[in-house]
């Protein structure tokens, strides 16, 4: 009686290990993120990113504000905040022009969520940083140069 109980425990234990392994991503590829815009993240310029997101030529706008230091000492950690005053803001993206791939992050703004995000990005060198906002189906952007004293992509 005890024997079979042990056996049963063993079997279920093995199953748990397997499911744990799957949950912790030992099998990559199975759970690859479906909603990740690969083309946009591989684009090199603002225009290409907008194209990859399915938009046309973005217009410059004064209703978008980038809050960041003018000079970042450490390019590995550059705080960047973007606030949009455009009505019906649907998404906010942060782009670093001179990084190997321009797009750093993109945020979907839901109804009820303020059109504001703050995060930290890496910058390889002094570069223009664009905030790209999709509002009411159209794309708008603003640009700010951030000087970097120490690059963030070095070994």
């Amino acid at each position: 009686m005890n024997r079979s109980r042990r056996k049963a425990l063993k079997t279920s234990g093995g199953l748990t290990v397997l499911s744990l392994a799957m949950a912790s991503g030992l099998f990559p590829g199975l759970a690859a993120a479906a909603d990740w815009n690969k083309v946009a993240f591989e684009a090199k310029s603002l225009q290409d990113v907008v194209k990859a997101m399915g938009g046309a030529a973005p217009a410059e706008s004064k209703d978008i504000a980038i809050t960041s230091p003018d000079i970042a000492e450490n390019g590995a950690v550059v705080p960047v905040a973007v606030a949009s005053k455009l009505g019906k803001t649907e998404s906010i993206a942060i782009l670093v022009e001179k990084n190997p791939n321009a797009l750093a992050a993109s945020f979907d703004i839901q109804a009820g969520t303020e059109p504001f995000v703050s995060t930290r990005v890496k910058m390889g060198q002094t570069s223009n940083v664009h905030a790209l906002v999709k509002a009411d189906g159209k794309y708008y952007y603003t640009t700010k140069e951030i000087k970097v004293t120490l690059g963030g992509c070095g070994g």
Partner: protein
Amino acid sequence: MADPMKIRAAMAGDKVVVKVLMAHEMETGQRKDSAGKTIPAWFIQNVSAMHNGRTVLNAQWGPAVSKNPFLEFRFSGGKSGEKVTVTWTDNRGEKRTDEAVIS
């Protein structure tokens, strides 16, 4: 398994301010190790935040987001005592979900 996120959610007027600090390497795929081999990219690709079963923020990230990423956002319609849940998924398919109570 990745370390837990630090999440702070606090009321500021009628809005909830959420600050999240995630523990993740955010390897770019650009760097090389001492043997000259490229270190494969490993970074968070998707982040989502839920409140009362409603998504309040969805994000797609590239490897240019800093190591141990920080994220701040604000939404309305929350009350103190309610929960905010944040989930990230990285390019290896690893996932982590944590929650915080709005104070």
